[in-house]
């Protein structure tokens, strides 16, 4: 969606990189999601440390992975999600983090200090986290929603938006069937595939989207949409008729971490950057700016009470308990790919 701006930004970053080569000023290259940091935080970092930040953006984990794996550019800090961190660890692409240089890591919430995608946070420090759930228009549904089955309810003709991403859409369908969202079992995957095809054929599905789902929901274009919690907060801000739920059958919970790729040219600068981002006031600033939950307990104390008490932003331990992280399924990638073609191209 935002590929062109990303391309332009990359070119600009490249130009800046080349231009900046002449006098040897210390710098790091940071590779982060589109629109995923408070710009002021970058300025503060440079002000304090004198390290220039070349900031480059990506839109999907896969895009970031391919850029890093195929070489070419060198990045000092990247922001992959859970399952991608796992894949990068498996493929030996990351430098272990020196926790002695990360005094602010102790601010991290206990349940994220030892995530199952990176035991002991050896290679990654959590940056943001959130859930996947249903954003719904209370005026159109006439009441609260608590189950994935609502997204298959035939009273919502052409009113359901799903994500154009096989992991997310198939994952929640697996949850709705009571299966593990990381399954490799063919029969379970095929049942989920058929359920997604049924969603199209019964006329419930309006479209698969990514960035546009939150805008469509805010514009009353659909009754239900599959979204990330942070997007839900943005949309609810614009349109108070909207509400968000993490269905009772369970869902996906995700975390984006900060990692140092092996190709980094300035790992010392990189670890200073990561620790800086984990300072309570910086983490609070970023969380407030982008609307996703911070894994930083000390930052939570600095945030607005309204935000902290919002279950979309800060879900209860029970909600967290019924959700699971994605794990890497690269070994069956062609199976997932084929299922997605069968669902979206027939």
């Amino acid at each position: 969606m935002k590929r062109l701006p990303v391309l332009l930004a990359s070119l600009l970053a490249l130009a800046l990189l080349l231009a900046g080569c002449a006098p040897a000023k210390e710098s790091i290259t940071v590779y982060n999601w589109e629109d995923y940091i408070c710009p002021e935080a970058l300025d503060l970092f440079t002000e304090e440390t004198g390290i220039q930040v070349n900031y480059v953006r990506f839109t999907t984990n896969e895009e970031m992975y391919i850029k890093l794996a195929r070489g070419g550019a060198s990045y000092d800090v990247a922001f992959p999600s859970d399952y991608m961190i796992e894949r990068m660890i498996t493929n030996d692409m990351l430098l272990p983090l020196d926790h002695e240089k990360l005094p602010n890591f102790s601010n991290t919430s206990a349940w994220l200090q030892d995530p199952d995608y990176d035991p002991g946070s050896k290679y990654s420090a959590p940056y943001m986290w959130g859930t996947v759930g249903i954003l719904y228009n209370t005026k159109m549904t006439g009441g609260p929603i608590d189950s994935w089955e609502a997204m298959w309810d035939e009273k919502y003709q052409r009113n359901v938006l799903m994500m154009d991403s096989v992991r997310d859409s198939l994952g929640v369908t697996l949850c709705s069937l009571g299966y593990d969202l990381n399954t490799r079992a063919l029969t379970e995957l095929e049942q989920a595939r058929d359920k997604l095809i049924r969603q199209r054929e019964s006329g419930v599905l309006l479209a698969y989207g990514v960035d546009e789902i939150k805008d469509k929901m805010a514009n009353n274009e659909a009754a239900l949409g599959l979204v990330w919690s942070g997007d839900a907060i943005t949309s609810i801000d614009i349109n108070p008729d909207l509400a968000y739920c993490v269905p009772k059958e369970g869902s996906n919970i995700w975390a984006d971490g900060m990692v140092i790729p092996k190709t980094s040219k300035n790992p010392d600068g990189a670890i200073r950057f990561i620790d800086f981002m984990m300072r309570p006031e910086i983490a609070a600033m970023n969380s407030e700016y982008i609307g996703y939950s911070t894994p930083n307990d000390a930052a939570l104390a600095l945030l607005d009470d309204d935000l902290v008490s919002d279950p979309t932003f800060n879900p209860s331990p029970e909600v967290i308990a019924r959700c699971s992280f994605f794990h890497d399924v690269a070994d069956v990638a062609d199976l997932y790919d084929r299922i997605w073609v069968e669902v979206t191209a027939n």
Partner: protein
Amino acid sequence: MNRKYLAAPFSLWMALFTIVPILLVAVYAFTDAGGTFTLENFSKVLDPLYLGVLLRSVGMALLCTLICLVIGYPAAYFLAKKEIDPRGALVLLFILPMWMNFLLRTYAWLALLESNGLITSTLNRLLTLLGAEGEVRLLYSYGAVLMGMVYNYLPFMVLPLYTVLSKIDPRVVEAAQDLGAGRAQVLSRVVLPLSLPGVASGVTMVFMPAVTTFVISRLLGGAQFKLFGDLIEQQFLFTGDWNLGSAMSLIMMALLLLSMGLMKGFGDKEERGQDA
């Protein structure tokens, strides 16, 4: 005087940025992830699942080309007939949208066609006035994708047609009229045959981008009507299977080459006919 060396920068450019990449695509297509020779990528593409998508992409592209021709020919004819002054301005109107990136224009259609968007809501209000039941939804359908394609590629049809039509010597038309041809006869026996080279290049110029379309189908079709271009993109950006993606691209290129060859033969024959 031999000035072939003037073409050297262009040749170098072509070699570096066209021929070398195509060779790389070919290498990827015929190898597996480990780099050993294989034909497996092609047998995967020949799967009915992918072939079905390819056929549908070709069908959509042909339909899009036909619609562009039907809309574009009269438009180009009208533009070419206009006497001098407003002509430049009208041609400019056709080219003007091309100054803006096609992605932005497609996003604009996304807003226009959604249920609360200008076009759909106006249409629905009109239908209610006329006593029709129910509500029309335009976005996220095959029709929306086709419309997006026609809108984006129409200028590629109009411009070559306009160029050819405006170069037809008016005396030829006058001669036909003097010899007693009616308006329909002038059109079908003189203007139409003389404009066929323009038709051929217009058809090629529209068909090529139409058959490789990818973003339009995702945005206006809501990613439910994926075309072959979308599948290629998916292989490169999401699945990361560059070998399969390359095999798909190569098949697409072969198809384009074939259709270009057909159109070229068609155009050449016409030109020879003209000389005779």
